[in-house]
Each structure stands twice: as C-alpha cells, then as structure tokens.
C-alpha cells in the first residue's frame, strides 16, 4: 500500500467515526530474518503484518480496538468497535483528551533505504556464510541472526494530527562459540550496505579465540571496561527503572527530586533524541507528537524524564513525544537513548587498568532494588581479565549485583566512538560508547 493509499484509508475511517475524538495509528511492517546456529541456517522467515489501532473518545470515556485487517471495511469496523467500547467504559477523570497537532520535523532521508527494503534472502545467506566460514577456519561454531525490516508508522486523529514515517533496519549479529569460550559481534544500520559481515565475524572470532581456556576469578569489586554491548544491557534496565514518567509514578526513578543535582560522574550525559541522525531517527511518537530532546543526566547532574500526553497532563508537564501505542500499561518510553561521547578509546581504557575485568556483554539483567537501580545479571560472550593495562586472558562468566547509579558515579572514562544498537523490538536504537568504571561488584561465578 502506498503512503497516499494509507493516508486516504485512515482519513476515510476517521470521517466515519461517531466518537467525540478519534485517533488511528497504523503500523505496517515487512520483515525477514535469517537465523543461524551450529554453522548452518536453522530458521529463515519472512513476515508481512499490518496493524491498525484506534482510540475513540466519548467525553471522558476512552475505548480502544485494533485489527490486522487493513482494508477499508476492516478500518470502518475497528473504528465502530472502539467507539462502542468507549460508550461502555467508565469515565477516566485523568484523561486529558487527544493531543492537538504540533509541527513534526521531517526525519532525514537516511531513515529509509531502498536496498534494505528490497534485500533478498540469498544476500542474507551469503553474509551469514561469510561469518560461518570465518568461524570454521578457527574450528569454532557460529550462531546469530541477520534481520531486515521495512516499516511504516502513520498517526492521524480528528484533532488534526497527521504524521507519517517510514524506516528500514538491517542488523547482523554473531555469537561465535568454542569449547569453553565465546565471542560477540553486532552491527545495525538503516542501510544494509553498511553491514560488514567480515568485520562482525572477525570481532566475534577474535574474542572467542582470545578468551579460550578461561580461569576463574574470585568475585568482588573490580574496575571494569564495558563494551557498548555491555553498556546497552545496563541502559535498557535504567530506561525501564528511571527514565519515564511511569518510573516516577512507581517510585523507582533515582532522578526524582534531584533535578540539577550532581548525581553521578560529570563525564556522564544521557539523553533521548528521536531526531539525531547518528541514531535511528523517529520524528514523532505513537500519538503523532514530535520527539523532544530529553536530558536524563547532563554532565552527571539530574535531568528530567519522558512523558506522553496522559502522564504529562496528570503531572502538570507537557508531552515530550514519547508515547507508545495508546492506551497501554507501560506508560511513555525512551526509544532513542544516547550516551554522550567521551574523548577516549577502548584501548586507552584498558591500558589504564592495573587489574580489572573487560565485559563484552551482559545478559539477563533484572532489577533487585529499583530505587538505586540495583540490578543483577551475568557476563557472557567474552569476559577478560585485565592485568597491567592488557586484556590477558578469558575468565569464567561472572554474576554482578550492582547499583547502576553507583557505577555511573565511578565512571572515569568514556570512548569517542559510539555504536548504533538497533532495538530488538524493531523501533528505535541506542547510541552508546564504551566506558570505564572504577568499581563494579561481581557477586558470584558462573560455571
């Protein structure tokens, strides 16, 4: 369906609504994924899904309905269902009404790349074979995914909101495994042409080889150098625990009540920016509201959190353009998190550590004590001992139990280079550097 056809379809459905206010959100996605393991492709899929969600408002009553039937009849029916649902709902006194339209900046042309949208399964297989061949040359086993996606997001409402964005994502991941070690590589971009399977394979193979025959280190507090992949897992948990209005409502937000105060190292700046072309831009949210730049931490000082129109009205703020599909139980969410770049390199960081741990990835993080962002998880796919400024050998994976606020407080170095890490949920990305923290607590050893 063309952009114009989708626009006309949504507009016709809006005209047919009997509700006081109506909003239609359409998400159309063509995606494909080549999944490989044990040096072969074991699943290879494509998916073509359209989904339309309608929010109908009758006074203070809100009804919502969605469908995968994206025909004119399907939209007409789902609008009717949402209106009917609204009439039967109790009043929601906190509901502020659908947001009024605001100007949305057009995202850069680099968000949608034709070559990505039109990529062929054979091309993905060839890329995967390059990774597998590299692993096999070292007697290792390759696993991973090569995913491509072409998505359209359109929001239209009876208040005059009309927003449309099309974007592509290509992401290749490699986990290379040996008898007692593993390594990791990942690259993502809107442009499939920027994905370099050889570089990804090389990075993962090198790590798997270098960390062979790991030794066990006693758990305890270590100085750590974290790769961008490791930082991503930690920032995902931080986003959940502390960066949204819902986290304030739930008292899990360590920023609450500390705006402007020095909370962590002045080296650390964290923000959400849906327009920065260095990431994977998304110019508006699921209410069609423009994405605002939101600072969570500015040189270590406490900043703000993200809002959608509901939480904004409830707490006396304005929406920052971070609504997910409405209504929902998650609240607003930052989908384009950046950590400000530093002036170091990963090699510099390692050279500054006398004895510490280099972490390629963290895994299965989960909050232990949300208010201080205390989380637990384990390392995986390449954990090194650093001795006298060098990554000397692999160590067995370690479990950490650590306050992320404390970790940021003890951060002493951040890299210039940042990796673009597309979200596994198919929308948005984080742009993150490597970082060095002087204290990070590992609490047990994995076998």
């Amino acid at each position, binding site marked *: 369906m063309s952009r114009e056809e989708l626009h006309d379809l949504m507009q016709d459905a809006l005209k047919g609504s009997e509700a006081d206010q109506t909003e239609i959100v359409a998400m159309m996605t063509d995606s494909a994924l080549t999944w490989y393991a044990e040096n072969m492709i074991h699943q290879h*899929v494509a998916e073509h899904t359209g989904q339309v969600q309608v929010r109908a408002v009758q006074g203070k009553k809100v009804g919502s309905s969605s469908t995968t039937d994206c025909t004119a009849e399907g939209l007409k029916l789902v609008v009717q269902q949402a209106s009917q649902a609204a009439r039967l709902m109790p009043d929601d006194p906190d509901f502020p009404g659908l947001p009024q339209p605001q100007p949305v900046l057009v995202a850069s042309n680099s968000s949608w790349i034709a070559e990505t949208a039109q990529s062929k*399964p054979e091309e993905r297989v060839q890329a995967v074979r390059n990774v597998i061949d590299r692993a096999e040359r070292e007697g290792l086993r390759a696993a991973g995914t090569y995913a491509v996606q072409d998505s359209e997001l359109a929001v239209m409402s009876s208040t005059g909101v009309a927003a449309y964005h099309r974007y592509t994502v290509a992401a290749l991941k490699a986990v290379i*495994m040996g008898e007692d070690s593993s390594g990791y590589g990942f690259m993502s971009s809107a442009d499939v042409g920027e994905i370099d399977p050889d570089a990804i394979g090389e990075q993962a193979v090198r790590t798997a080889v270098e960390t062979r025959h790991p030794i066990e280190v006693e758990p305890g507090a270590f100085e750590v150098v974290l790769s961008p992949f490791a930082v991503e897992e930690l920032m995902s948990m931080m986003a959940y625990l502390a960066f949204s209005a819902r986290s304030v409502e*739930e008292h899990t937000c360590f920023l609450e009540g500390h705006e402007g105060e020095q909370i962590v190292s002045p080296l650390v700046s964290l923000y959400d920016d849906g327009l920065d072309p260095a990431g994977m831009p998304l110019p508006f949210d699921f209410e069609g509201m423009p994405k605002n730049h939101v600072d969570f931490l500015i040189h270590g000082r406490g900043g703000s959190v993200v809002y959608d129109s509901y939480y904004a009205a409830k707490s006396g703020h304005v929406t920052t353009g971070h609504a997910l599909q409405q209504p929902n139980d998650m609240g607003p969410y930052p989908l384009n998190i950046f950590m400000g770049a530093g002036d170091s390199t990963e090699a510099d960081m390692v050279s500054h550590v006398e004895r510490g741990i280099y972490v390629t990835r963290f895994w*299965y993080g989960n909050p232990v004590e949300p208010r201080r962002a205390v989380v637990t998880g384990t390392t995986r796919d390449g954990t090194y001992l650093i001795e006298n400024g060098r990554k000397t050998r692999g160590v067995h994976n370690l479990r950490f139990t650590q306050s992320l606020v404390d970790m940021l407080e003890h951060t002493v170095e951040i890299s210039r280079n940042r990796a673009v890490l597309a979200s596994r949920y198919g929308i948005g990305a984080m742009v993150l550097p490597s970082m060095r923290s002087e204290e990070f607590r590992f*609490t047990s050893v994995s076998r």
Partner: protein
Amino acid sequence: MDKFAERVLRAAKRLGATYCDCRAVDMEREDISVVGGMPRAAVHAHQRGFGVRIIADGAWGFSSSSVVTDAEADRIVEEAVAIAHASALAKKADIVLAPVDAVQDMVPHQADIDPFLISDAEKMSVLAEATRAMMVPFVVLARGQMQFLKERKTFASSEGTCVIQDRIESGAGISAMAASDRGGVQVRSYPMSFSGDNAQAGWEFIEGMKFLEHAGPTAREAVALLSARPCPSCVLDLVVGGQQLALQVHESCGHPSELDRVMGMEASFAGTSFLTPEKKGNFRYGSDIVNLTADATIPHALGALAYDDEGVKGRKVYLVRNGIFEQYLNSRASAPVVGEEPMGAMRADGFGRAPIVRMTSINLEPGDLTFGQLIGGVENGLYVDGIRSWSIDDRRLNFQFGSEIGWIIKGGKLQDMVRNPTYTGVTYEFWRSCDGIGGPDLYHVWGVDNCGKGEPMQVAHVSHGTAPARFRQVHVGVLHE
C-alpha cells in the same frame, strides 16, 4: 480441510516443497488495567493471519501475512519456497522430520463463561473495587489488570493432518506499592506478580480469585514490608513458596530442557543449556524426591494443548524422574537426534512466527508434607514467596532470584518478616538439596503469560504446577555494597 489451507498446500507442492504446513489464526485479545480505582486502559485487539512453513531442497522456509486472500496465499507460499531454497545454500544436512500419525480433530475451548461476553465496565468495576480497597495509608499505587484471549487455530499439513483448536484464556492480578518517607518502596501482589494468575478458563476463573477479600491483606503486607528487617546475608535452609518455585521451575528446568537450546539453536539470544545430551538418563539433576514433568494434558492449565503447532498430540513426559534427568522438550526435527519421540512442544506466537520448542506445563510433582511440616523441619532458615526479580546465566546454571516477601524461620516456626529477600545458587546443586515438597493440598498450577524466547521474539503462555518445597544450605541475601 478448509479451502484456504488446501490452496496453500497445493501451491507448495506445485513449487516443489517436500513438506508444507499452514497455520491460520484468528485471535481476539482484551487487556484491562486499573490504577487506584480509576480505569487506565482497555485494549481490544483482533489478529487474523496465516503462516506457511515449507521444506524445499532439504531446508526450512517460512513466511506469514495478515492479509488472508487467495492471491496473498500464493505470494506467501512462493516466498516461503524461495527462502527455503536460499537456506539450502548454507545447509549441512537435509531436515528430517520424525514421523507422526496424520490426525483430523476439532478441539473445543475449556471456558464455562465466555469472558468476552462480560462488559468492560464490569471487569473494570471488579478491579476498581479491589484497587480502592488496597489504598490504605502508605500505599501509593494500587494496580489491577485482567487479560483475556480467544483463539481459533487451524493447522493443516501436507501429511494429511488437519486440526482446529479453540482456546479461551483468562487471567488477572492486583498489586499494592507502599512507600515510606525514607524512600523505601515495597510491592505485594495477589495472586501472583506481573500479570497475576492465568488459565484456560473463562470469567469463572476471575470470579474465583475473590480480589476484594485479598485486597486488604495484600496491601497491609506491602506496608508491613516497609518496616521489616533486611534479608540476612548468609547460608540458610530455605523454604520456597509455590509462586516463587514456579519461577524456579521455569528458569532452571523448563528452559534448559528445550532441545533446540541444547542443540545450540538459541545460542545467539537466550543461550545454550547445561543439560547436554550425554547427561540424558544418567545426570543427577535433583534429589530423589524431585520429579519434574512436561504435561500438556492438565485441564485448564495455561500451557496445556491438545496439539502443538506441528500437529503433534500433546502428552505428559518426565523431564526429571527421581532426580535423574530423563527427557527433553522437543520437535519433530530435533527429537530423532537424541533418540526421542516428538512430544508436542512446538509452539508459535500468533500467526506471524514460525514454531520453536517451548514449554507446555512444566511441573514439580507434589510431595507429601504439610506446610507446617516443611517449616517445622527447619531450625534456622528463611521462607520466601512472591516473584520479584529473576536472572540466570546463558547455560541456566547460575541463578539469582528475588522475592516480594520473606520470613525468618527459627526452631521450626515462622518469625520476623524480612524485606528484599534474594537467594542464589547453581541449578543442580540447588535441586539436589531439596529434601521436602508440599503435598497435593498445597499444589497449584500457575499460568504464566510472558515467557519470551526466539528471534524474532515470541511470547508463549506456559504454566507450572508447584507446591512449596524445602532446600538445604542456600546462599540468601546477596549483598551489593
């Protein structure tokens, strides 16, 4: 077999596929949430579409679409075949499926009262009443949620199987968050945290939860936790409540028993498993009293199924019998590799995703102890329950779990309440230390609707039958400072 599925299977054969299955899904969902007595969200969703799985050139191809037309069927089959041919460029061996009998069947749902016939207003009012009742002093947030699913799934294969399965699921839960002036935050949930308890049942399941009766006690426990002492950090005997044990079974038995994970297929995401094939039939997973089953036949269990998404009949198998690891959760392609028969554990999330090995209902069989006997057998220990936090390594060995609430056990009796209890260990060491399991009176099958696995991510609805159980000498109270 319906005409649409016939068309798909014919087209696949014409294009050279040696195997094809078509899975059409028509699904309604409803999610209701209430905060502090006020409606927060009511979302109705309808999904309809089909997925086509092909073997051609000895390799898999899969494609799916939400457009259910003849023309789209032809296009999707063509794409699935093309993908299979591309996959074959990197194959090591042809896919071989274990033989299964072709079946034709129609399976009804298990609900007495269709929850989709109950108005949103009535659902909201149940949660509103309960969450209002939880707003006692120091409770700052009271949440309630319900979720319902109604599905018709039609599976047809080129081997002659055609199964139509209807399914209705209902689930709900409430939680109270209490906050102190000093910044402490505590949560208690009923009947279980996150989305509560879920079952293949109707509105009668929600009515049976009696939220209003439990709202006050749940809220008062959250408040009491604010002034409870912190969990001690030491090695103690541990009694784990049924809810928490459901999580333990899920993470440390269910996932490591998935044969695709064991064979490395999940290595790039969820990881692998310590339960490698040479351990089958001889590895001491737990103590003699530990019996863990995968049972797809339990009436109303959320993870039960009549047939999986390969058309294999669901059944009961022992994963661990008398403490010894015995069998995997498997698929038609993976089962023969380790000398097993397919046992009906291939499941897909909706129409859009290809099936992968999933849990059904994974259960710790009950023992014969009363709750008093479990606690009475502990001189110095801790009792914990209420799932709060979980983490386990990528081989499913090193785990660390947190519970909502705990109580010190001294001299065989429950004593002081403790806050933020955690415990950690290594899977097989933990299960080997199990020396007491509650009896059938304490046994409950918990429905869990948020099990994530696979790429792209798929969410499965599974269940876990558990009773409280006792474990000796466990490291509790992991310190982070």
